[in-house]
């Protein structure tokens, strides 16, 4: 349910109107203008005895529209309580206990992961979760934060709102998760010969910024600067090879004084990269294809269609982004399902069917159909 106001009272009333059961918890996805009201929201929900978890995002998606304000409320039947995992700044490991999954469930439950996109070592978080759950679950999630990439608390539970943290909730609903982006290789390969977490310091043993600028030379009207970086490079992310899948996209979001390219997700040292290009058509088609690949039918007892679409993808597509949302909504409608796609403009997208190490994607469209 999308709530245009995002006010505390509206959200509390909306959650109550959805009449959550004893094991249900409200997943609350907030647009960034609502971030300052989160402590008040936590108190209000807590006072009414409503269980919840959530995060703040640059924007929200509801049906065919994106919104920069408001809230989305989704009631999910949870297994256990949502857990907060914190990044230990000393060891750069993740501290906390993800909810345990009982054995003998009819189908694999789904782990919802909402993580502060600016937290270090998100790949470490995903390895931690993979080690904990292995293939007994499906994963769906998103990187939270704000459009200015300011270091602010962004994920919350009744325990509070946190930075450098992740909220992990297990719903007993099964997810059919599909991932597509529509970008294709334009040049490469390049070796990320020196990296540090999400900083690419060298490409092919040269300064990464210099190599990247050279590659994009023909498209640039002026040299890359810290100011024009996103605008100049939004159509040229990197891709890392993955067997049997599209390349995993890494989105450079800024350049440092030293010419290091800062991506939204970690880039392993010595990984082989390609520069990707995409056009609105291929991106829109890819999103639609993700829904088609889900093979949902009207007979499925669908409870939700969750979307985690990249914020920078939306910026890159501009006006064409509404086409992407429209194409997704069309495909869902065509399947005969009555669900409205709802979700977030994310700063990194998380998905896995459990058989694969969950990945923190960039500039990618992830759809998860939650069903009984």
């Amino acid at each position, binding site marked *: 349910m999308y709530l245009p106001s995002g006010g505390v009272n509206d959200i509390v009333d909306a959650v109550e109107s959805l009449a959550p059961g004893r094991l249900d918890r409200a997943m609350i996805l907030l647009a960034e203008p609502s971030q300052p009201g989160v402590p008040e929201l936590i108190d209000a929900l807590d006072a009414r005895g409503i269980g919840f978890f959530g995060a703040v995002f640059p924007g929200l998606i509801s049906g065919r529209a994106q919104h920069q304000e408001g809230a989305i409320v989704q009631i999910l039947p949870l297994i256990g309580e949502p857990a907060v995992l914190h990044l230990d700044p000393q060891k750069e490991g993740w501290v906390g206990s993800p909810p345990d999954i009982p054995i003998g469930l009819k189908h694999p439950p789904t782990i919802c992961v909402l993580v502060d996109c600016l937290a270090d070592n998100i790949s470490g978080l995903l*390895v931690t979760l*993979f*080690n*904990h*759950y*292995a*293939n*007994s679950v499906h994963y769906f999630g998103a990187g939270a934060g704000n459009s200015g990439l300011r270091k602010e608390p962004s994920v919350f539970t009744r325990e509070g709102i946190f930075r450098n943290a992740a909220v992990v909730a297990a719903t007993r609903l099964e997810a059919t998760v599909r991932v597509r982006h529509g970008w294709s290789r334009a040049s490469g*390969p390049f*070796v990320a010969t020196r990296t540090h977490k999400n900083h690419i310091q060298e490409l092919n043993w040269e300064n990464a910024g210099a190599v990247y600028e050279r590659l994009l030379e023909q498209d640039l009207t002026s040299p890359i600067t810290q100011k024009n970086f996103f605008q100049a490079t939004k159509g040229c992310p990197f891709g*890392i*090879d*993955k*067997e*049997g*899948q599209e390349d995993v996209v890494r989105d450079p979001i800024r350049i440092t004084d030293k010419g290091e390219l800062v991506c939204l997700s970690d880039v*392993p*040292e*010595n*990984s*082989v990269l390609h520069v990707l290009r995409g056009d609105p058509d291929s991106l829109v088609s890819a999103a639609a294809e993700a829904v088609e690949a889900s093979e949902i039918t009207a007979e499925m007892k669908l409870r939700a269609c969750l979307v985690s679409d990249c914020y920078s993808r939306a910026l890159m597509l501009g006006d064409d982004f509404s086409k992407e949302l429209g194409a997704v909504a069309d495909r869902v409608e065509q399947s005969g399902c009555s669900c409205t796609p709802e979700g977030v403009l994310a700063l990194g997208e998380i998905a896995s069917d459990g*058989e*694969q*190490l969950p*990945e923190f994607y960039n500039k990618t469209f992830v759809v998860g159909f939650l069903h009984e």
Partner: protein
Amino acid sequence: MSEMQLPITRDIQLLYELSLAVGRTLDLNRCCSDFLTVLLARKNISYAAVWIQDHHLLREGNKDEVRLVYALPRSRAREATLPLSHPAMCGDSDGPYRSVSSEDPEYRSRICEHDTECGTLAIFRLGELGWLRLFSRDATSLSDRELVKLRNVVEKFTTAIEASLLHQRILYEIEERRRSEEERARLERQVLHAQKLESLGILAGGIAHDFNNLLVGILGHAELARADVAGSAPVLESLDAIVKASEKAADLCRQMLAYSGKASHVVRPTDLGGMLREIPALMKAAISKSIRIRDQVQPDLPPVLADVTQMHQLMLNLITNASEAIGDAPGVITLSTGIGNYTAEEMQRSASGRRLPPGLYEYFEVSDDGCGMNEETRLKIFDPFYSTKFTGRGLGLATVLGIVRGHGGAINVKSAPGEGTSVQVLLPVTETAPSEPAAPVAPDVETSKATILVVDDEEIVLGVAEAMLRRAGFEVQRALGGARALDMFRQDPARFDLLLVDLTMPDVGGFEVFRQVRAVREDLPVLLYSGYDEQETTGRLAGQRLTGFIHKPFSARQLVDKVREALQTLRPTADDGVDR
């Protein structure tokens, strides 16, 4: 890029990344993690695990066992160890073993993971070290061609694991060496400390002995002078002051002798627990009201041979220290006793200043939850005159150690800042109790007319003893040294009614004088005197009919009483120890 080039480029990319993920660290866990994380991130593989033969991991490892050292995801692993003969550990150095669930009837016997019943399993032999197991739902990801492609990089991974294991072994050996060097250094420190304590003990004993001789003179002459001064002459006050100061000096001498382990003590079967329980009541005024005494004294422990007075002094000292460590804050002093079989190593670790045999020791322990002390302080507490208090009290714990040492025991001290202190005193358990002293024999001589030969190498002592005895009415002959005494005795053995002999003399010692005299006259009473331990002295002359012992310094009264008592014992009645 052509369609043909694309898969080759992809292969090169994968192998490039994998080969550079190998060997970046010598830490076994990280070595496995780096390689397997890249493998799972790039290939469509659901599970990877490294198993290593136990004896490569642990020096005492089982040669017939294989151990899981890394798995991704960990929760998919079902076993931690497996027998070497388990079908899961298959494949040889010729190439990987591949098993597809739909094709291989042996497939199920080869799995040791959760939820891997359907899929493809690839098992690489990691040289002689172990196995790498990979699982994928997708058969093409682990096709024969893919496995051949991975073969070289797995060989490289094997070498990296070998290096990590070697590194681990070297680290282990370095750690072992460091530990043994630390242990050696600790033992050396302990030996040095023991030697220091022993040297200090010898020094203290020597000083106390000479000092005692001087005190005999000072105290004796002061007493004699006091007796000569009539009425209330002003000089009496000065003489009293000299006596008092001399007595204090004598007390210090006793402490020094106690520290040296040569204090005069008389041992008898003693109930340590009973004594320990009595102390707090005696110290009521000295212990803060906010301190609780916890009684953990074990009943029915066998008595140990100990000097009651010294044990009393020792317990008082320990409980006072415990009380002061707690101060005015609420706290608990725990008193406990027990008996234990202590190993040679445990005895070596304890403070004793000498090498004590392993075996049964009874102990009493005083523990407090006070301020505790650091290692530096703990190492110094037995040093004479060492104190952390504003006003130290003489030899303190040095005396405690001396007393314990004199009893053939040892002390264990445990302490840490803020965690309190516990002092455990160990005393050897002996099966035999000393025989009771023989009953005195009825007097049959006129003691006041007796002739006494006083033997000492110190003129001052001779002078004082002679003066004291003469005033009591005795006839006194003096011998300066043991050799002179024997000469005088041999000239006329019947001339003397009693010999008063100093134990320590440079020419002929008191023991030798006693033996030679006893060889000639069995009936002659002989009194030895010394600042040293009576028990040790009389013990050395057990069975030789020594008449008695006088501890230096002595007063005129003590000397005369002892001489009179000895003169009444002309016939020895006991055949060991002191005969009365």
